[in-house]
């Protein structure tokens, strides 16, 4: 997910109207820098964060003068939104909004491609209102103004707004396809006093698998890696998929569905998963698994590590050999529970016996052992 000001820059490059904003990075002189450059008040100071619900959490502050702006900026930088401090504050002229609309373009499996959603009343309460109008576009070049017009007929009575929304949705859909965006959400889309529409907010999510043909997506991924600690960065460099949870049983797992199944089973057995960690997209070798152990071993919250891999293309004797190597070089004494299954699993016991490890045949047994160990460690 891009920050609001990054998303707006993308929209602006496609000829979409956005407020003229000023991006303030954190730092001692942040407030001064902002006050020095804003000439007209009131302004909006907006926390730049990568999670939703900022509006409800006080992440947008109206400032009537330069002192108020300085105070707002200081306060925003000191606040956490969705567990993270703002990476920047965006200062924009306070808009004289006549009506807040909602417009988004997003990939949707049901539409075989993109779907456009429109609500005549946008803003932070959008989810509580009636469902938005839904135009299933499909492939972006299938967008048809007359089809969307038909869809909007019963949702937007003002035909001038309707026509502007259609033109904007057409532009957004093209932009999404061209820049490999999976979501472009504008909420609110501001109807201004002059009747024109302006993107007052922008939530843009890009398709990271298109990084090979979009250097800025690649750049964003690199940036995201720089924002995290070294150990997690090493994991991300191995394509591991990681989500931190609040439990103590860590997973070194393969396959998203199987990882979630193991998480669920840990909970079922009375334990608490410490993370979702799917190592299958990267190399299933010592090089691949090593950073996972390094991260989990260093994480004080983690009490036990459960290695759960059910491989098809991944051959189990190779995974077992990697585990042997990693266990040999590893300093941590955190217990590791193994459950390998799949291709060539019959070769695993012989390898495991070389370093005294035991491979559980059933996931249930491995999970039970991990939960037992975690409780013992408390």
């Amino acid at each position, binding site marked *: 997910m891009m920050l609001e000001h990054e998303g707006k820059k993308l929209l602006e490059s496609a000829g979409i109207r956005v407020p003229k904003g000023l991006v303030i990075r954190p730092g001692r002189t942040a407030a001064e820098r902002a006050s020095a450059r804003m000439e007209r008040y009131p302004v909006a100071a907006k926390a730049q964060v990568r999670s939703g619900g900022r509006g409800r959490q006080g992440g947008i502050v109206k400032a009537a003068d330069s002192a108020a702006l300085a105070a707002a900026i200081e306060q925003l930088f000191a606040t956490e939104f969705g567990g993270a401090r703002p990476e920047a504050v965006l200062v924009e002229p306070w808009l004289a909004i006549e009506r807040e609309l909602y417009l988004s373009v997003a*990939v949707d499996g049901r539409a075989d491609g993109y779907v456009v959603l429109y609500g005549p009343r946008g803003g932070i309460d959008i989810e509580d209102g009636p469902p938005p109008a839904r135009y299933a576009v499909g492939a972006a070049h299938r967008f048809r103004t007359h089809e969307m017009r038909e869809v909007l007929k019963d949702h937007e009575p003002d035909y001038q707004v309707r026509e502007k929304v259609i033109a904007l949705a057409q532009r957004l859909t093209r932009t999404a396809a061209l820049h490999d965006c999976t979501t472009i959400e504008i909420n609110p889309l501001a109807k201004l006093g002059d009747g024109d529409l302006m993107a007052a907010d922008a939530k843009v999510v890009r398709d990271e*698998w298109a990084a090979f043909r979009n250097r800025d997506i690649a750049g964003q991924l690199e940036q995201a890696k720089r924002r995290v600690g070294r150990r997690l960065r090493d994991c991300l460099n191995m394509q591991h998929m990681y*989500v931190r949870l609040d439990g103590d049983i860590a997973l070194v797992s393969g396959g*998203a569905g199987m990882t*979630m*199944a193991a998480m669920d089973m840990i909970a079922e057995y009375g334990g608490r998963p410490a993370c979702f960690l799917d190592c299958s997209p990267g190399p299933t070798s010592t090089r691949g698994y090593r950073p996972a152990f390094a991260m989990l071993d260093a994480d004080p919250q983690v009490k036990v590590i459960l290695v759960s891999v059910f491989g*098809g293309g991944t051959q189990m004797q190779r995974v077992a050999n990697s585990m042997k190597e990693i266990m040999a070089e590893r300093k941590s004494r955190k217990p590791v529970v193994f459950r390998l299954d*799949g291709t060539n699993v019959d070769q695993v016991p012989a390898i495991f016996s070389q370093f005294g490890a035991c491979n559980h045949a059933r*996931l249930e047994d491995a999970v039970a052992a991990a939960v037992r160990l975690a409780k013992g460690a408390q």
Partner: protein
Amino acid sequence: MSILLDRTNRVLIQGITGQMGTFFVEDARKYGTQIVAGISPGREGARVGDVPVFGSVRAAREATAADTAIVFVPPAAVLGATLEAIESGCRLVVATADELPVQDTIEIRAAAKLHGAAFVGPNTPGLISPGKAKLGFMPSFCYSPGSVGVISRSGSLSYECCKRLTLAGIGQSTVVGIGGDPVKGTTAAEALELFHRDPETSAVLYLGEIGGTEEIFVAEYAARGDAKPVAALIVGHTAPPGKKMGHAAALIDSKAESHAAKVAMLRVAGVHVVGGLSGVVKTMQAALSPNMSAVHGATA
């Protein structure tokens, strides 16, 4: 019978000279898959094992009557390879690649529809009709022939569940990995429809997860008067909202995409919802028992 894949499919491999292609020839053949051709532009005339290599799908089809393609090329080349297979007349095209931009999937799916081809992928282990043939890297020992059709959003989870079914004596007609991406070559709804029409399939096991809308169509199917019994396991009970759990589509973005909402919806529709991985066999047995299948949702 089975769906999409059986002993008659004549398979060509795009990217046969790569590591995955070469491994696949051996493994899939051992399982009974008819591998008749490989594609590797510039290396036409070569052989991988005894499989002849061609420069184009058209040439391979002319020489070998191949009708099915499996694609092992880097993500950036998948679009070109699958479109070639589809537009050259293959009736089934499988692309297991993960890391495919969703734009490309959208285009491939549109082309497949236009040409009346089935496309399975991306981000899937492929599909297998146990005892007949397989198109992918799933571990063969997990499967046995039978009458349960399996549809899965996740690879490993389908190996795990099928192994449990097999050990319990419940065989499978076909196991289709529909993949974890938001746009799919074959959707759950389409796979269900194929299983519905397959006389050899008597019930369906659906392996889903949080996020996305696929499960809506599973519920819709199960609610039909003429539906075959459907059992479903939805993983991600412990997944937090707003976080992507590996798969692009495994993200709880709204209440309807949560585990609880999906389970509730499936139950109402009469799906036999599995409580957790350990319950797969029992619930499947219940779904298969003629008495139970009349009492919708009783095993949930």
